[in-house]
């Protein structure tokens, strides 16, 4: 469980990125943190694995104050995948990149190899395993960073803009993976602008603006609330845009993806015919 209580954070250059941010994330939850650039999303999640410590206020991970433990011990529990892959990558080959943290955490070589093989296969990176990560495309580099965190199986995984540079099939794969992690009881925190990606997952959504949490609730209600979304510089998903215009003809509220839209339309048509 992660708990941020009244967190303020000021960067050395004086920018106050968080102002009284409070949030609680329970084990096994899927949470998407959304909001415009500069809202404080990334600053907030960097507090969850201790990369940043609050200027004022407190953050607890499983009841332990992040100010009282090392980043290394938190990292084992909370894996953070950076938004910009180049802030994370540094090894000479993809394989080494993925193995690096595993060796640091003291896994034996057989286990390191087993995990590296599995995770590279899963993220379709096996053909690149001996290549330098820096020769890969943005989308591929992003997958390397995700793979290298997933490899050590942290209890909480934070993905900062995971869909950046990913094409359709890769996004589908990522979504499948997130759902699989959840089935196993993992906690997943997404920081994203991608409303279409989020609309299929239907997570709890935390909207941020100006360093604080401005709304918190299920995707179906947040992503259909035009007034709140506007304040957070987010457009509703395309299906929500359609259905918001059609509530007056008897379609339900809270429809945000294709599957639910199809179901709702067919139900309405059937009831009209009978």
């Amino acid at each position, binding site marked *: 469980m992660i708990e941020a209580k009244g967190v303020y954070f000021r960067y050395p250059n004086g920018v106050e990125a968080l102002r009284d941010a409070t949030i609680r994330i329970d084990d096994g939850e899927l949470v998407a943190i959304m909001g*415009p*650039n*500069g809202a404080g999303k990334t600053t907030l999640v960097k507090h969850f694995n201790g990369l940043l410590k609050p200027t004022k206020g407190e953050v607890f991970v499983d009841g332990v104050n992040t100010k009282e433990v090392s980043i290394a011990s938190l990292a084992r529990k909370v894996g953070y995948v950076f938004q910009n892959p180049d802030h994370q990558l540094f090894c000479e080959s993809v394989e080494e990149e993925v193995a690096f943290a595993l060796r640091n955490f003291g896994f034996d070589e057989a286990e390191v190899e087993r995990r590296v093989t599995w995770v590279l296969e899963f993220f379709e990176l096996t053909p690149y395993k001996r290549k330098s990560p820096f020769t890969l*495309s*943005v*989308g*591929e580099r992003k997958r390397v960073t995700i793979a290298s965190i997933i490899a050590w199986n942290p209890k909480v995984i934070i993905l900062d803009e995971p869909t*950046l*540079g*990913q*094409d*359709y*099939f*890769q*996004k589908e794969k990522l979504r499948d993976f997130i759902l699989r992690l959840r089935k196993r009881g993992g906690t997943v925190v997404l920081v994203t*602008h991608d*409303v*279409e990606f989020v*609309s299929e997952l239907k997570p709890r959504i935390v909207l941020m603006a100006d360093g604080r949490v401005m709304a918190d609730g299920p995707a179906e209600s947040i992503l259909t609330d035009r007034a709140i979304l506007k304040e957070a*510089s*987010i*457009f509703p*998903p*395309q*299906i929500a*845009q*359609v259905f918001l*215009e*059609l509530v007056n*003809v*008897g379609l339900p509220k809270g429809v945000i*993806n*294709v*599957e639910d*839209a*199809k179901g709702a*339309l*067919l139900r*309405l*048509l059937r009831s*009209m015919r009978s």
Partner: protein
Amino acid sequence: MTIIRANGLTFTYSGQLRPAIEEVHLSIEEGEFVLIAGPSGCGKTTLCRCLNGLIPHFYEGELKGDIFVTGLNVKDHSIRELARYVGMVFQNPENQLFALSVEKDVAFGLENLGLPRSEMMELIEWAMKAVGVYELRDKAPYELSGGQKQRVAIACVLAMKPKVLVLDEPTSSLDPFGARQVLEVVRKLNEELNMTVVLVEHRLDLAVKYATRAIVMNDGRIVLDGDPRDVLSSKEAISIGIDVPKVVKLYRALQEVGLTLSEVPIAAEEMVQLLQEVLKR
């Protein structure tokens, strides 16, 4: 007038066994707004690089076939010459901006052309106004938002008054508002100046409504080419893994259960109208 023509264009990067693009035949008329989509690694970026001479003059490899842009054979003209006719905007604006102010960045390309000062000043002002960054002219790139930076990058190439604007995933690092701003600017340049646009984009929900034509690439080849509605609603587009707009997906999902709407929608407003028709019946 045909402004871009490729005949059997094939390019293999040096050190690679398989060509990145293969047997590409393409003809684009002046004033078209062409959207290019396709999965990662399908050859979109390679094709763009052939349009402004980065291939074959900067990237090494073997080029077969021909590519003509504004009547110039790309093989025979330098990147520098081609830059006056083809403006190229990349994924990450930060790779394109480096001066201390917006105005200086926009001036940079022109300074290399050796134009008289008065003409240069006029072009810079015009380009900054056209993309809506004139008010930001004294700001440093790092003071700008992502959407603003990308519009400055467009102004930089616009100042050369190119005939063709090529944009390779220009919105991929932007938030939705920034992305919309950039695409609106591109639409304006296309509609008001009749500038030919070639736009590579993953975010089809935002981009498709501006396009007059859509091309889908897969494995280095053009596999679909035509009206955006037909291309995006085709079975192939979905099986190749194109991120078609959700309204198109809903159209297809309804079709599968026997409910065929009178037209393929490509924007939310269009889907609203189509569904209203059905529900009125």
